[in-house]
């Protein structure tokens, strides 16, 4: 079977397609025939050696995958051959809060991932997907969707009527728009492109703010929320944007800190955290239970993950280029 490996992690060109013997399901495992993947910025970081210490060159990349169970090992009752499943990001994090015991079980980072024809995973990490979803749609969920759910629902303690602010139109943000719609929240989204803002609004965003044409965009967020600010901020831009997020947040606001992409030139001023009683929480994706809850919320509100572009398995490097071009809205998917 064909499998990608991260190689020397000097960029997308280090990705290498190799042949490996087909995996067998050990006790507690299931072998999944992967039908689709999606890429996350975190995969770009891994591939460029920016995501903690360098991984072994044979590490299989990508956390996000969906496919069909082809065999199960001893003691597995959770899934059976033929089941259509998606795979949870931390294969050991089932429920409850995050813990250091889950370090190393992140697919495509600490553990072999899903950019492969066949993969063996702990059966406990698998979640059945809705019948009317394609594999491509299901493959969008594990990293970006669950991150948005954790930031908004678990850490953000969202309740109907809250306003959530989404930074940019990447995968996490578009899931944020959909989660907001499912839970009776208002959403405000930012982008450098009016065209993307219009598309986000057509997906259900209540307001859009162009941060390129509007240098003081946090003020526009305040205006869009009657002067109050956002109750929840999904901070996907990174520490360099925190001053803006603090300014756009409402009193008692919850800020989910996702990424470290936009590094701070000067340290963020944390004074507004005190004055506004803000709660800043670091988010590292989420548990399998959160993925199950997310699927249920999307199904109930008749929504499906939003796919921007699909590339073929043989051209997986293209997904990296598309991701880094930042032209997308929603998810970039790889089809097997």
């Amino acid at each position: 079977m064909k499998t990608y490996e991260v190689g020397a992690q000097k960029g997308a060109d280090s990705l290498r397609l190799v042949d490996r013997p087909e995996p067998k399901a050990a006790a507690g495992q299931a072998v999944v025939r992967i039908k689709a993947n999606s890429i996350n910025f975190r995969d770009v970081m891994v591939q460029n050696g920016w995501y903690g210490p360098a991984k072994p060159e044979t590490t299989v990349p990508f956390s996000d995958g969906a496919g069909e169970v082809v065999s199960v090992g001893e003691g597995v009752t959770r899934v059976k051959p033929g089941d259509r499943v998606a795979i949870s990001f931390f294969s050991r994090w089932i429920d409850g809060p995050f813990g250091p015991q889950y370090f190393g079980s992140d697919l495509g980072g600490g553990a072999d991932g899903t950019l492969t024809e066949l993969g063996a995973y702990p059966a406990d990490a698998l979640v059945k997907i809705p019948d009317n979803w394609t594999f491509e749609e299901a493959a969008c969920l594990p990293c970006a969707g669950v991150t948005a759910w954790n930031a908004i629902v678990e850490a953000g303690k969202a309740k109907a009527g809250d306003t959530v602010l989404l930074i940019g139109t990447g995968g996490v943000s578009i899931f944020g728009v959909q989660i907001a719609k499912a839970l009776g929240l208002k959403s405000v989204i930012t982008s450098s492109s009016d065209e993307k803002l219009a598309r986000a609004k057509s997906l259900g965003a209540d307001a859009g703010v162009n941060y390129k044409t509007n240098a003081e965009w946090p003020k526009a967020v305040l205006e869009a929320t009657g002067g109050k600010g956002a109750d929840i901020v999904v901070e996907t831009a990174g520490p360099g944007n925190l001053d803006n997020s603090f300014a756009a947040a409402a009193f008692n606001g919850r800020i989910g800190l996702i990424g470290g992409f936009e590094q701070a030139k000067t340290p963020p001023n944390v004074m507004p955290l005190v004055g506004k009683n803000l709660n800043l929480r670091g988010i590292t994706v989420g548990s399998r239970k959160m993925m199950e809850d997310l699927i249920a919320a999307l199904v109930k509100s008749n929504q499906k993950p939003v796919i921007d572009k699909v590339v073929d398995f043989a051209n997986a490097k293209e997904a990296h280029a598309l991701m880094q071009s930042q032209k997308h809205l929603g998810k970039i998917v790889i089809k097997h």
Partner: protein
Amino acid sequence: MKVWELGDQKGISSLRMVDRPDPKPLPGQAIVAIKASSLNRRDIMITESKYGAPKPENRIPLSDGAGDVVAVGEGVTNVKVGDRVVASHFTPWTDGAFDPSYFAADLGVTIDGMLTERAIVPAHALQVFPASLSYEEAASLPVAAVTAWSMMQPFADIKSGDTVLALGTGGVSIFALQIAKMNGARFAITSSQDDKLERCKKLGADITVNYKTTPDWEKAILAATNGRGVDIVVETGGMATLAQSIAATAPNGRIGLIGALGGRPENQPNIGGVIGKNIALKGITSGSRKMFSDLLKAFDATGTKPVIDKTFAFAEANKAYQYMQDSEFIGKIVIKH
């Protein structure tokens, strides 16, 4: 009656004692004969014009006070003449989450405070305190103890077995120690002085680190917690210490940022640590009357007494300020009226 006023806020020497007619309550107000008041760090900042805009010169300082109700205005039913009461310094904050409108009715800051023989207080800010507490003890609670409580209970959700770290030995830190111990938590504290750390051990501290002789104190905290770190940090040290606090925190840890911080940190906090360890960092500006009421109940039930460092006479209130500024104290500085 005698009251102290801020004066022109050029320092402690601007404080002045003056005579005023005894106040009468308007509807919804109570007059409290103040028996004790206490100082917080922000009271010093106010005398130096370092706490927001300058206040009117005739503003009565201090947020913390306890006394007897001597008169109530029309419509007041929650307290009556003769009650021994304490006041919540954000007077409109009775319950629920913080609201920015509360800044406008903050005792000793935006409205007249407690350094007076008789204070005019919105009655809904008052509550009766347990007989087990003296006026001096009750007066030490409103800002520092409620801040520690707000941080440990609604925010950090303290439970038995957690480890709590407080930086320095001021009022909030010592109350954090007491609240941690009553909840069955372990307690770690830092100070620049070994004798203060000794006193904290006597009060129940499990882990003590001298940050002067151990500048890498976060490593000492990690070592004392088997490399895991602490579950809760009472970050009173300002932003300059935040990077070390994040390093000393366990996965899923909660860091409460307490006010009186200024400027940007010299060492940029390791935001990667906040993400990777799923740390929650929350700003805390004191708490509600409901939190205060829960705190009073807990102090009463466990027989816990606030730690008072020194008591000054009302006529020498300015000396209490000077003592806070100049001295090495543990816990609270109280003024007896």
